[in-house]
């Protein structure tokens, strides 16, 4: 596949495109700000939850799509954020804001640990390891009912206190978190850090040969994305005010992954959008009961097979005529063994 840029860098054209793009962005943001005025409380709740999933799916896409780490522990980090603040509130009476900060820190710390542990793992091992970690954590949270209230559910204080019964402020906070994290991650991928992450993902050996500190960037990816997940989880906890270990079952992880994939795992915005559209879609299709998940599963498989860059990335390209494609493309400079079944002699300990 060639990587020739499709867009010829014609300065005047570029300039007007940029104006167009930023203009459109601004209009949309304004519309988003006015959403609560024409959407009633139930649908507003759906959108808030959709934003929550968007935060998760976009941050996961950063970890998986950009940094190449297909981790199954993402919702576990989200749960760490939620349960940290929940337990601090329950056992020590700490206020929600403090709890959230600690939730983020805790999720980040564990993220760093996991990131460090899985440094040398090939994708299948990374997946299995993070699944195991996530499951153990879930079983622990569920089992140690003295600490976490297990399946009873852990109650958290609403972030804005018991007097604020309207959803609207929560909507804005979730929107702010979503936009904030997207902007942050957007900045990150366009920075040197993002460049190095992609280099590491494309060809770890080559990147290392060129002096990129592979270890540092892989762990950094975990740290950042786990903190974002933790933030989402902690705020979510103080919004819905009750959490249970079910928030981190593997099916939830599958859902987040599916959202990112269907949206487009190599594009933050597409992944976020995937999250929003799918969550809203699933909610609207509730009447179909169990079959809606069947359709969803089939859709996921088909998209993986036939539209592996997601549904939205091609759309973006179509609408805005993009430059060099950075999606899931064949490794150009990799050792051939990458795509062949692994001979038994070469096992988990490295490329």
């Amino acid at each position, binding site marked *: 596949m060639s990587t020739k840029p499709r867009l010829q860098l014609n300065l005047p054209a570029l300039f007007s495109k940029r104006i167009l793009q930023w203009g459109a962005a601004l209009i949309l943001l304004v519309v988003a700000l006015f959403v609560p005025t024409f959407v009633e409380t139930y649908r507003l709740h759906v959108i808030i939850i959709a934003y929550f999933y968007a935060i998760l799916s976009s941050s996961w896409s950063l970890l998986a799509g950009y940094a190449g780490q*297909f981790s199954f522990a993402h919702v576990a980090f989200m749960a760490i954020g939620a349960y940290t603040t929940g337990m601090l509130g329950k056992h020590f009476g700490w206020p929600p804001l403090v709890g959230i900060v600690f939730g983020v820190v805790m999720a980040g710390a564990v993220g760093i640990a996991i990131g460090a542990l899985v440094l040398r793992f090939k994708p*299948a*091992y990374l997946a299995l390891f993070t699944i195991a970690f996530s499951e153990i954590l879930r079983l622990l949270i569920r089992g140690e009912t003295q600490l976490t209230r297990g399946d009873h559910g852990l109650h958290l204080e609403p972030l804005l206190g018991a007097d604020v019964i309207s959803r609207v402020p929560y909507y804005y906070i979730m929107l702010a978190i979503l936009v904030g994290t997207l902007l942050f991650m957007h900045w990150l991928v366009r920075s040197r850090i993002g460049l190095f992450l992609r280099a590491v993902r494309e060809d770890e050996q080559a990147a290392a040969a060129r002096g990129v500190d592979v270890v540092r960037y892989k762990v950094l990816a975990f740290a950042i994305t786990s903190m974002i997940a933790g933030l989402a989880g902690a705020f979510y906890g103080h919004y819905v005010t009750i959490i249970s270990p079910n928030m981190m079952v593997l099916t939830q992880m599958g859902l987040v992954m599916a959202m990112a994939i269907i949206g487009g795992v190599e594009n933050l915005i597409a992944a976020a959008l995937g999250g929003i559209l799918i969550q809203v879609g699933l909610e609207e299709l509730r009447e179909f009961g169990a079959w809606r998940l069947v359709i*969803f*599963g089939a859709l996921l498989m088909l998209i993986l097979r036939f539209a592996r860059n997601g549904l939205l990335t091609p759309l973006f390209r179509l609408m805005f005529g993009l430059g060099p494609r950075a999606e899931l493309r064949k490794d150009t400079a990799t050792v051939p063994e990458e795509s062949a079944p692994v*001979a038994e002699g070469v096992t988990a300990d490295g490329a």
Partner: protein
Amino acid sequence: MDFFLSITSTGLVMGVIYALMALGLTLIYSILGIVNFAHGEFYMLGGYASYLILSALSGLHPLLVVPLAGLAGAALGLIFEILFLRPIHQDRIDRPDEYAILVTFGLSFFLINLTLAAVGPYPHRPDSFFPGTVNLGITRISGDRLTAGALSLILVGALLLIINKTWIGKALRAVSQDKQAAAVVGIDSLSMNSIAFAAGAGLAAVAGALLAPSFSVTPDVGAQPSIRSYVIIVLGGMGSIKGSIFGGVIIGLVESLAAGYFPDPSRGLKYKTAFGLLIFMLVLLVRPRGLFGRKEE
């Protein structure tokens, strides 16, 4: 001492059955190079297949249904492999490792919900192979479980024989070692892939059919066996047949001993799976190639 023996015997019997299912996963990994994240769902389908076939053809002896269930699993596996996995080996997929993980995960999601929507949530149970229990002195074991264990043992033995002594076995081994070299000798790796995946799925289905009379089936009954299988193949060494067998038996024993001896019986029982997972994580960190990580077969 009696107690130890009874716990151990339980663990051994279950271990052999676990090994059978793990063998399927290993076969798939060894030939196709991917971890099948829908393995537990083939197990589940095997159980449902035996239940549904017996409901429709009640005259059939339950034992006869086991191979039928296995065939059903294999058929489904074959179709899936050809449609969704073959492109990997035709170099039509970018980032094949991740794709394989995600698409088999998607299959798992799809199958669980399909079963839930189509058959319903209630637990079901096909008829016993041999009703009643057998007194082994140290403990009693149900006829069903004994049958399942015995058949698993036989199947594992048969599998070893096939892998080592038959042409097909040799062809499979060749492909797992070096695809190109195998092609030179005229072995079509794509066909071998399909055979391996179908066989792996079939083995999981057989395990499911063997255990269905003992444990009953629900749409999500495959979740724990799935995770357990991953633990076993990593412990035994991915792609190692011998490893899967040993790994299966070890895990069977660990689970039994944990539940039987852990000081706090609640935690022992609650965290039965977690112990296995812990071992799993430790193996991945300390000795990733597991017990028998270098394939010998």
